[in-house]
């Protein structure tokens, strides 16, 4: 039974595991990890150069076929996020942008309000916007209306590796939101990624757990298998057609 591909921004993804380039001990792990995990989209960040200026170009470590997902990390306001997005696009990254606006420096929680504003602005400029947010159904509806391409709810605060602490809120999004749901942040173990997929998430984004493993390539593969397993389990439960149509017919309709 074939799973349908995940379509975002006109691009078809076979792999529902997205990865990130942050926190690797050495950049040459990145291409090995991408090969092992078969991930088709990876995040990058934009920064002012170090004054030394001799840094390697991260883009050299990413195969051409892998879609770049620049993030707006560092932005504190919607305007800053928009600026970073425009720069990234101009620099040749394509139209994908992960909006990450964090004003809380203690827990690194996303600023949902600024993120919504940035989404409105950037969707209007033709970006494929993936907003990273604290799961909130009302916000999700507004992001839908604003033209986001997906929603990326956090599973747990960045760095905590506590898995799907927000699972019941994520479940609400999966059930009620028309946008693809990509769980980001907090996934520390492949089993947690499987859990997200079993619940019906459309994809997961895993960075830290893979990058900081002793063997990131192997961990990348582990996550890839977990994501596939979770997705298969979800499809087996609902039947692959109704994976897109989440409503089911009423059991007591016959009484009416």
């Amino acid at each position: 039974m074939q799973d349908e591909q995940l379509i975002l921004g006109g691009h078809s993804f076979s792999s529902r595991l997205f990865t990130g380039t942050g926190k690797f001990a050495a950049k040459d792990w990145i291409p090995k990890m991408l090969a092992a995990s078969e991930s088709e989209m990876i995040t990058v960040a934009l920064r002012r150069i170090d004054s030394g200026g001799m840094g390697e170009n991260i883009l050299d470590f990413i195969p051409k076929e892998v879609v770049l997902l620049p993030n707006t990390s560092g932005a504190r306001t919607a305007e800053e996020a928009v600026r970073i997005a425009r720069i990234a696009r101009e620099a040749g990254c394509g139209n994908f942008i992960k909006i990450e606006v964090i004003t809380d420096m203690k827990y690194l929680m996303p600023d949902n309000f600024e993120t919504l504003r940035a989404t409105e602005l950037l969707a209007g400029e033709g970006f494929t916007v993936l907003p990273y947010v604290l799961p909130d159904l009302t916000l999700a509806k507004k992001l839908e209306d604003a033209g986001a391409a997906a929603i990326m709810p956090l599973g747990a605060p960045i760095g905590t590796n506590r898995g799907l602490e927000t699972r019941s809120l994520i479940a609400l999004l999966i059930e009620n939101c028309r946008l693809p749901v990509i769980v980001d942040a907090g996934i520390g173990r492949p089993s947690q990624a499987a859990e997200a997929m079993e619940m019906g998430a459309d994809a997961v984004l895993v960075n830290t757990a893979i990058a900081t493993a002793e063997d990131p390539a192997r961990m990348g593969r582990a996550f890839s298998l977990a994501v596939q397993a979770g997705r298969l389990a979800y499809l087996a439960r609902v039947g692959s057609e109704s994976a897109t149509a989440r409503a089911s017919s009423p059991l007591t309709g016959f009484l009416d």
Partner: protein
Amino acid sequence: MSFYSVIKRYHGVDFQTLLNQVTPARVEAALASDHLLENDFLALLSPAASVYLEQMAKKAHSLTEQYFGRTIQLFIPLYISNFCANECVYCGFHRGNDIRRKKLSLAEIETEARAIAATGMRHLLLLTGEAPAVTPMEYLEDAVRLLKRYFASVAIEIFPLETEDYRRLRLAGVDGLTLYQEVYDEKRYGLVHKAGRKTDFRYRLDAPERGARGGLRMVNIGPLLGLGEVRSEVFFCGLHAKYLQDTFLQTEIGLSLPRMNPAEGNYQPDYAADDRTYVQFLTSLRCFLPRAGITVSTRESAAFRDNLLRLGVTRFSAGSCTGVGGYVEQEETGTPQFQITDERSVAEVVQSVRAAGYQPVYKDWDAI
């Protein structure tokens, strides 16, 4: 120790007030619970829960799938005698009814067994009216031993017995007991059972326990909806099942939900449960007792039964005749105990079960 001690706790309780006091918030709390208590069960049975029916149905559906998978156990009833010494105002076999009384000889039982076995059915429910003098223990044991040659499972739905007699029948091959209390309200019980051994409320109430103590694997109970106020009757039946489950861990407890149906004698029930309420009862029971088997018989229509398949039912009778014998073609079976509404053949029921995405189970086990 007896279920009566549970009934006593509710003596004097005004169920109508209690049920009408249930709020939507209370229903929601009950629905959200993974481990329902008595008052959660009551909340689900209340009028206030009616608007939550679809949610109850979804929960009942997924609990049934979880604990039973997508299977429906099939069984078929065989009445071997309609002699009866009781006067139950609602029953076709009422001793005052002028009907043709019949009792099958062993040879006749065997003929019926062969005919039934040809349909593929492997679980048989053996029934009699209540007339121990006409159908004494030896006759019953012989019948059971005979039927065991044709059927993997033989259960009985006969008059209440002593523990020792249940043990005897178990040794002869019986694995299950069905016995409906009919009505749990003692006063109502007295009104509808006018004469005969059946007037003894306690004796009947304690019989399922005696069956369990006699070592029977399965015990199945039920109210006869219509004889008493329906919501409290289902409440007590649920509590009865829970009591049996908690007390007899080795026994599989099930419930049936028979709804009153015209029979010889033209009894008009004082109470009724419409289809929506019936579904509410079924789904509430499933939520309260996730592991209890629930039977719906051919008293209910084919269309209704098919819709119930996904709502918590786990056992279906099929191809039934409720007169004496009746499976050998063109015979005169006499007056039925109750009117059957679903007259489909075994094959037709099996087809419907499969069409609903469920597997019809002819045989659950073999005693070896």
